[in-house]
């Protein structure tokens, strides 16, 4: 742990089925209830039992934007965790483990080896009991008063009855006392702040953002790492009056959502890249019929089934090119869970205004990460703007759904409204909605339709914020990222500063529309621009080049399934500055 601000990383490792989530949740909740910030990343595999799970929870007095570069304490639940991670621990760290079943290896100097004889302490045959013992010992090492943990365990297990509470408090206390007696606590005790924070996973932030935006219809098919959005909606559907459907496939999900949206309901779906591939035809349908919908693609490592539990920024070109034909769409890649929450209502207002599909790119890093959030920063009543939506009956006839207006946007009436009967169609159509694709095609009308749909977006750049350069203008290096890498880049800039290198950064969020001029200005005045991407081929760079003509030959790319840690980027920037590499691919130290 560095001197200065409290910044501590705790990891819990074991195999699927060993119940890592429970101690993780207990500790995370304990941290936020002390007003501490946290950022948690869970490395896991697509397996229900077995494999290796490694949950890292970083906690600090200050906001933390990644799970960090180093660990202070590991709670080992199996031998595998010990074998994989012990070698990564440095000075003034601890490793806790059940000495009944786990043999420690040779740790580096300064690593506190902390064996706990779990069966001797608990006389329990419950396999999961070692987790609670570990939590007790952890609290002791972190200098927490036991009463705080007792309160937290009581709340956690209250629903399962007093005997479960008693058992857990009892064994936690045994672990706590054993650690206090036998191991050296960390020199700085866990601080506290009276202002309680909240926590959420990115997928929950997506669900909450949608609820705040007024989404009343959500349909989806389960697919990692997007399934948490479905779970959030399912859990809250009845309280919030939201229709939630798990349907037969992503094709149904996307098209149902368009059907719901056509009747005037705000509707959304979320999936991962493979499911989004099935939704692509629907993207064009929404564009052609001009029905506002939002589809979220929570990216994972591809192609195809790929690595279902690992992260990647690999679907930018998929969403750019989704669906046949030539039409505008909105694409946004929010940069954090809170940004995700705020962006969902924003994009709903935009798609309602422009009557078009809006695509949101998340990824496993944001969606399945757990983050602290200040409850005061969560605005559940954002501005809602439905655009030109007709819901009042009329006695006048002659409504043209696709009126060739100057702005390109034609007022939209929903079924059930008197006086506005029309058909929306995926075939090319005239202003009144009648087909111009079958019996008599009409090149003049076709051209007018294409131009009107394109014209709708002529003022779009004014409606979304341009990315802004953060940090000193004359920095030695400019790190350019997009979407979820903001946290890692932000901390990499700090790390570079510690190492004596001045850096600034530009995080691009809106892919379409792309603020080409703003980005070009930054790139053109940068001393050394480096693009940072969580993919192999530089998808964002190639897109930026196609839109701006800019060529940038310095890159940091990672495509091993694990997210960037700040030092990966800082190391890369230094290698590039030293002329040792043009494209730097960081080495992932831990095999999880």
């Amino acid at each position: 742990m560095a001197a200065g601000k409290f910044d501590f990383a705790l990891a819990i490792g074991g195999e699927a089925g060993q119940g890592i989530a429970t101690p993780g949740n207990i500790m995370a909740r304990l941290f936020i209830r002390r007003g501490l910030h946290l950022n948690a990343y869970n490395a896991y595999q697509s397996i229900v039992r077995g494999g290796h799970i490694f949950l890292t929870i970083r906690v600090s007095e200050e906001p933390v934007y990644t799970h960090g570069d180093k660990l202070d304490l590991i709670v080992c639940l199996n031998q595998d965790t010990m074998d994989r991670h012990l070698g990564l621990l440095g000075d003034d760290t601890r490793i806790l483990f059940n000495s009944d079943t786990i043999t420690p290896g040779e740790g580096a100097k300064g690593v506190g080896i902390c064996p706990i004889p779990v069966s001797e302490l608990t006389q329990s045959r419950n396999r999961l009991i070692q987790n609670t013992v570990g939590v007790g010992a952890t609290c002791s090492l972190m200098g927490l008063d036991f009463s705080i943990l007792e309160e937290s365990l009581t709340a956690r297990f209250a629903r399962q009855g007093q005997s479960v509470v008693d058992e857990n408090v009892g064994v936690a206390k045994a672990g706590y006392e054993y650690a206090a007696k036998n191991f050296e606590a960390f020199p700085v005790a866990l601080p506290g702040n009276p202002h309680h924070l909240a926590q959420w996973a990115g997928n929950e932030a997506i669900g909450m953002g949608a609820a705040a935006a007024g989404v009343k219809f959500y349909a989806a098919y389960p697919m990692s790492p997007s399934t948490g959005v479905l779970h959030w909606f399912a859990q809250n559907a009845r309280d919030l009056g939201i229709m939630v459907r798990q349907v037969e496939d992503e094709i149904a999900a996307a098209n149902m959502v368009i059907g719901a949206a056509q009747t005037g309901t705000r509707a959304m779906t979320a999936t991962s890249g493979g499911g989004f591939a099935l939704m692509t035809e629907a993207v064009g349908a929404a564009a052609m019929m001009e029905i506002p919908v939002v589809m979220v693609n929570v990216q994972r490592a591809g192609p195809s089934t790929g690595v279902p539990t690992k992260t990647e920024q690999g679907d930018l070109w998929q969403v750019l090119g989704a669906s046949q034909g030539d039409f505008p769409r909105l694409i946004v890649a929010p940069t954090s869970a809170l940004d995700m929450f705020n962006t969902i209502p924003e994009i709903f207002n935009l798609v309602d205004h422009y009557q078009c599909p809006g695509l949101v790119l998340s990824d496993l890093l944001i969606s399945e990460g757990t983050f602290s959030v200040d409850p005061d920063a969560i605005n559940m009543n954002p501005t809602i703007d439905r655009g030109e939506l007709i819901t009042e009956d009329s006695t006048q006839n002659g409504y043209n759904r696709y009126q060739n207006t100057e702005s390109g946007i034609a007022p939209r009436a929903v079924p059930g409204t008197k006086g506005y009967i029309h058909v929306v169609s995926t075939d090319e159509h005239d202003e009144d909605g009648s087909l111009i694709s079958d019996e008599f095609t009409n090149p003049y009308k076709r051209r007018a339709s294409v131009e009107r749909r394109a014209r709708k977006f002529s003022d779009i750049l004014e409606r979304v914020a341009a990315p802004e350069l953060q940090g000193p203008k004359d920095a030695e290096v400019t790190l350019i990222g997009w979407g979820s890498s903001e946290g890692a880049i932000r901390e990499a800039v700090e790390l570079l500063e510690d190492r004596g290198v001045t850096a600034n950064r530009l995080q691009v969020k809106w892919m379409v529309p792309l603020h080409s001029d703003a980005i070009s200005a930054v790139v053109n005045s940068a001393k050394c621009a480096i693009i940072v991407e969580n993919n192999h081929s530089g998808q964002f760079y190639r897109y930026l080049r196609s839109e701006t003509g800019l060529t940038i030959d310095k890159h940091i790319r990672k495509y091993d399934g694990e997210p960037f840690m700040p030092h990966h980027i800082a190391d890369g920037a230094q290698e590039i500055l030293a002329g040792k590499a043009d494209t730097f691919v960081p080495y992932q130290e831990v095999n999880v």
Partner: protein
Amino acid sequence: MTTGTIELKASDFKSGINPDWCPGCGDFGVLNSLQRACAELGLQPHQILTVSGIGCSSNLPGYINSYGMHTLHGRSLAFASGAKLSNHDLTVIATGGDGDGYGIGGNHLTHTARRNVDITYIVMNNQVYGLTTGQISPTSRLDMKTKSTPFGNVESPINPITSAIMSGATYVARAFSGDIRHTTAIIKGAIEHKGFSLVDIFSPCVTFNLDNSNDFFKERVTKLEDQNHDIGDWKAACEKAIEWGSTINIGLFYQDPDSKSLGAREPVLNDGPLSSRTLGITEDQTKKLLGRMM
């Protein structure tokens, strides 16, 4: 469903656009029957939403005076389900062909049936792909020669009626577009039914399927209504549905009298259609959500 406003005639449900179907196409009879059914049920055009996929018959929403969605090939039931669940005050009627519904859209048919969404699905079954100029469809007979099976079809057709019953559909009927009065009655029953209804209608293609012509059906169709068929008996329904020879049965094969639609099972819809809800969430709801996060 009946409203107090002016009674409309079948002709009031014409859209003003003339169908581009081939002269003699069976789909004219289906359109006609649907317009009559809407008029006889006292429906108002703005309260109806017709949703189709892609194919000759899927052009139907353009020809009926109602709100319409002319969507993607095979996906009409997904769009229709979303629309119905979003605004259950609408009468939602999905229409399309056999390729659209039983081929590319087959998965949605199975699941919309078991989900029992309160929509009526009218399939104009001509046992061939017409708009793509003559290939086999999932209901084409064995040995049928088409452009994609020049030496004869070696695949067996599916039976939409038994498939729908097995999938859990709660109103399953077959009609023949040459008998408009009977088809109208079947469609009316389907619209009135609370739950998912499939109406498979023989709608002969005069251009690409000369085997299953108007005359072919005229000679063979026999009404279940004349046969003391028990519509609550799904096994008997399946037996009647697979008869295919000198007698081909039409009529209502199966209806679940206790059908409860998805909308009726979903408490979220108790407060009225989603589409007319106030957007945003209340302070109490916010408090509860934030409470769980802390």
